[in-house]
């Protein structure tokens, strides 16, 4: 990728390949450990962190207020009604789950493909997954109407002698999302154990040693342990890969198994998964750009990372574009009156504006990523990530609302208008997500130290050269 705009003596560019470096040169095992663990172990929390935390947690309190009011009054405070019985709750659920998927993609699929550049962004992308799943999981729970009975979704022997109905995609969803949440947490925690060991050994405070000591489970870096650990990581990655593909496929079944025009299509699973990865990578960039600036991690989260993530986004964005194209094509090719009307209504009906917001945010504007100057510009990528996530939110809005509000019978047509409680819940989860993320950044190692050490040139074992060296002594 050697192009004219690359400076010849730029230390961040590998002179042999001409590609941007994944890690700045000159790091040692010690400097990597110092730099990453200092963020957690410092007794001086940066003032900016407090400012961010204050802002994020005040926004998060919106969700508390909105949910409390919801529990008191019921789902009638939302804009949902007939025929649009699935409103913001399902849109936000799908949007958040989708955002989580990039974390798993980075931690699992890129690990299997031996993409070592992922190492520095892997941990916080996984954390992002977990927090996104937390926000996502909230919505179906509060949408069921009587959330205190949400455990009825699970099969368990009960005095009513009633069991769930396993032929429903909504129940598949319960298992897909709960498995996804569990495996993500386990994968994330197991990945963190060696680093927690490092923090235990380096912590100066009694309390820190105690807490990190418990969390590290007694990790001591034995090579037998490491080998089992590596096998387990690979297995978890191998399992998380089909899992992440299945989760969004199952979520798309919630729609695709229904007979509603606009939902009943076979292209949904792959195009949902691609969209999920697309929005997830956008969210990784939204988080990575401020973090690398704030904590001065430019030498570990490099422009090469931005460049690579932008390429993944460009690719998945094009897959999504193909999905949109196919939907339009099938509406015409199916020769179904209902499908055709649905598409026309989606584009030019009363809510047609949302379709064009989606097309411009998801397809038109992201084409800027073909330019290298965009891909390696943190500011441009930061702004673009917001555009893409807005677009992806509108994709779910278009799928949910514009398919539902005018279906087969004109007499049952209606409209949809979100209420202030819908907005409060959604904006509140954005605050909740940011709050959780800020806590993670402050109290846990956000870059995997052991994996970064592995990437250093001195990490390689070279018995041959040593033998020669010894003979020359």
């Amino acid at each position, binding site marked *: 990728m050697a192009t004219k705009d690359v400076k010849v003596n730029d230390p961040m560019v590998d002179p042999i390949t001409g590609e941007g470096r994944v890690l700045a040169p000159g790091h040692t095992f010690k400097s990597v450990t110092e730099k990453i663990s200092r963020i957690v172990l410092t007794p001086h929390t940066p003032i900016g962190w407090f400012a961010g935390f204050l802002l994020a947690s005040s926004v998060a309190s919106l969700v508390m207020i909105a949910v409390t009011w919801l529990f008191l009054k019921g789902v009638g405070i939302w804009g949902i009604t007939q025929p649009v019985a699935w409103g913001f709750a399902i849109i936000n659920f799908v949007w958040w789950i989708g955002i989580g998927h990039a974390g798993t993609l980075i931690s699992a699929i890129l690990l299997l493909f031996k993409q070592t550049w992922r190492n520095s962004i892997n941990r916080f992308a996984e954390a992002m997954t977990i927090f996104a799943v937390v926000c996502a999981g909230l919505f179906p729970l509060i949408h069921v109407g009587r959330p205190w009975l949400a455990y009825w979704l699970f099969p368990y022997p009960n005095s009513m002698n009633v069991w769930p109905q396993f032929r429903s995609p909504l129940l598949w969803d319960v298992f897909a999302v709960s*498995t996804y949440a569990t495996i993500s947490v386990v994968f994330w925690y197991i990945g963190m154990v060696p680093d927690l060991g490092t923090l235990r050994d380096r912590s100066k405070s009694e309390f820190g040693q105690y807490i990190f000591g418990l969390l590290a489970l007694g990790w001591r*870096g034995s090579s037998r342990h490491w080998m089992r650990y590596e096998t387990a990581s690979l297995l978890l990655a191998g399992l998380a890969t089909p899992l992440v593909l299945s989760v969004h496929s199952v979520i798309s079944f919630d729609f695709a198994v229904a007979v509603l025009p606009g939902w009943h299509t076979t292209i949904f699973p792959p195009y949902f998964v691609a969209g999920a990865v697309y929005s997830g990578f956008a969210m990784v960039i939204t988080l990575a750009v401020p973090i690398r600036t704030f904590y001065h991690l430019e030498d570990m989260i490099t422009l090469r990372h931005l460049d690579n993530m932008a390429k993944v986004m460009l690719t998945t964005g094009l897959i999504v574009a193909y999905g949109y194209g196919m939907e339009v094509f099938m509406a015409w090719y199916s020769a179904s009156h209902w499908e055709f009307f649905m598409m026309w209504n989606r584009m030019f009906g009363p809510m047609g504006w949302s379709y064009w917001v989606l097309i411009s945010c998801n397809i038109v504007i992201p084409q800027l990523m073909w330019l290298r100057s965009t891909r390696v510009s943190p500011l441009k990528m930061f702004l673009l990530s917001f555009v893409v996530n807005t677009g992806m939110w509108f994709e779910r809005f278009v799928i949910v609302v514009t398919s539902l509000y005018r279906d087969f019978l004109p007499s049952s047509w209606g409209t949809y208008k979100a209420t202030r409680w819908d907005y409060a819940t959604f904006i509140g989860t954005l605050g909740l997500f940011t709050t959780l993320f800020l806590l993670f950044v402050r109290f846990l190692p956000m870059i995997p130290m052991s994996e970064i050490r592995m990437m250093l040139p001195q990490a390689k074992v070279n018995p041959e050269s040593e033998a020669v060296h010894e003979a020359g002594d």
Partner: protein
Amino acid sequence: MPIQEGTYGLLAEFDTPTELVLAAQAAYAAGYRRMDCYTPYPVEEAAEAIGFHRNNVSLVCLIGGILGCCAMFGMETWVSVWGYPLNIAGRPYYSWPAFVVPAYEWTILFAGLSAAFGMLAMNGLPTLYHPLFNAANFRNGASSDKFFLCIEAHDPKFSLTESREFLARHRPLSVVEVEY
């Protein structure tokens, strides 16, 4: 666990992974078996050097996955056919294609949990105490930038003086005796 006293082993500290691997290979060649390397990141060659070639994590994972799949598929079949049969639009009670999805998810769930917790169990973790942490240089370096080889006292070939001499020949930064 009986209270153990005396020497746990001899701990040699190295600066680079290569020195560690060479020392471990030599120790294995000299007949030592009860020993372990400690590194701040996975060093495959070190495990090879001490004769640790395969582990059973994959097997545990496979068994877990099969169990999860059977458990969920069995439960779905029992619930839908015997436990609480429901007529949903005339579809058969035993609608196995629909049962595949939750069974698939539980395969992954059980396999993943088995791999993670099986790995921890086989590693003997969590553990609250280990004699190696009595060595100050181990606490300082093993999890950040130093490489260790520990020959354990219950190795038949272990001798405090000879093993110390043996380790000293491989240019370690230090050799310390670790107490229980």
